[in-house]
């Protein structure tokens, strides 16, 4: 695992290549992570690929609800020769959730970026086929955001029935 100084060195080299790309580094449970600016993600991944992190294992979204900027996207990088893992994180606000897509350089990110778009609404510019992948095509809303209700139906206990509550349509409205 890139130890604390290792992550700092990596961040230092990235800063030389791109002065404003790196926003900070984290080191948690012996695992390094680099926070970058959203628009510089393409170049940062290319530089890291040159440094040995040749494999992008996972792209996933996170919703940091109370904090701003709210939507986060994380890229898990793997170096198979030095047996090293590194995470590259970026944060975008909800109203301007556009991130350059990395599918051109990393084909594995195709479906995973579509899933982040489907679940969080992060728009990946330059993605060949940005459509919903898990939800139905015409579904409104992004289910995995923190403010999206979990949905489902309250359990129909006999007490509720006796109150004349009608849950068939999933909402508590008196018997139509």
């Amino acid at each position, binding site marked *: 695992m890139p130890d604390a100084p290792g992550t700092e060195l990596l961040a230092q080299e990235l800063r030389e290549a791109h002065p404003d790309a790196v926003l900070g580094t984290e080191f948690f449970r012996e695992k390094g992570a680099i926070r970058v600016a959203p628009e510089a993600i393409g170049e940062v991944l290319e530089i890291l690929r040159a440094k040995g992190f040749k494999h992008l294992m996972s792209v996933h979204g996170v919703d940091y609800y109370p904090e701003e900027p709210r939507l986060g996207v994380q890229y898990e990088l793997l170096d198979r020769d030095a047996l090293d893992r590194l995470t590259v994180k970026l944060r975008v606000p909800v109203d301007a959730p556009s991130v350059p897509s990395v599918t051109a350089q990393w084909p594995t990110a195709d479906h995973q970026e579509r899933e982040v778009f489907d679940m969080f609404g992060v728009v990946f510019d330059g993605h060949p086929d940005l459509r919903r992948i898990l*939800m*139905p095509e015409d*579904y409104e809303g992004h*289910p995995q955001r923190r403010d*999206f*209700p*979990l*949905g*489902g*139906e309250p*359990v129909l206990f006999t007490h509720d029935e006796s109150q004349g509550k009608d849950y*068939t*349509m999933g909402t508590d409205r008196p018997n139509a």
Partner: protein
Amino acid sequence: MEIIKREKAGDAGDFRIRQLQARDMLRGDLEGDDLERYVQERVITTTLDRAANWARGNSLFPATFGLACCAIEMMSVVGARLDIARFGFEAFRASPRQADLLILSGRVSIKMAPIVRRIYDQMLDPKYAIAMGACSSSMGVFNNYAIVPADKFLPVDVHVPGCPPRPEALMHGILKLRSMVHSDPAMGWRERYGAERTVEVLPDEGDALLQQEAAAAANAVNVPGAGDTDGA
């Protein structure tokens, strides 16, 4: 998919009367034409129906409808240890045209529900549906935005509890269905649910049909019991 009932087949009162009749018949103090009518109504009249039921009950062809984890347990029902071939159900058919039992094994998501409904429609009558597992009977472990219980879009005959149910539980459910088929003369699911004279319409067609009925009912002389919409 909405089912619009024109008039209730028999409400609670009617059922209560039949229960009393059955008790009198058993006690033996039902005679004359009452006994005649009772026997005619309750006992299956034609033997052809009986033979067809017997054959149908013993050779239900399940449609391979594996959705999720319950599909693996459904597969092990056909395995060597708990062999469903002993009861004649092992011919799993892939196409709905040749299957008359839909074992809904797994969780039905909102994207999959119309497809399950379409496959159920394309099965030929008489057809039966088993909701296997907690996810398809109720919403089971995942009571959230993505799952639809089978009862919301499909008339289900047998619910098999469990997550996933043991193969023996599914076998018990299928045998319960078999005894239902043998004893119950009514074939299609409309008879079973007292939903005769109902018609299935797509959601948008339903409203037009309702207005037509309201107009027809308005000028008809005796208004039958108010048809109520019950979600199917």
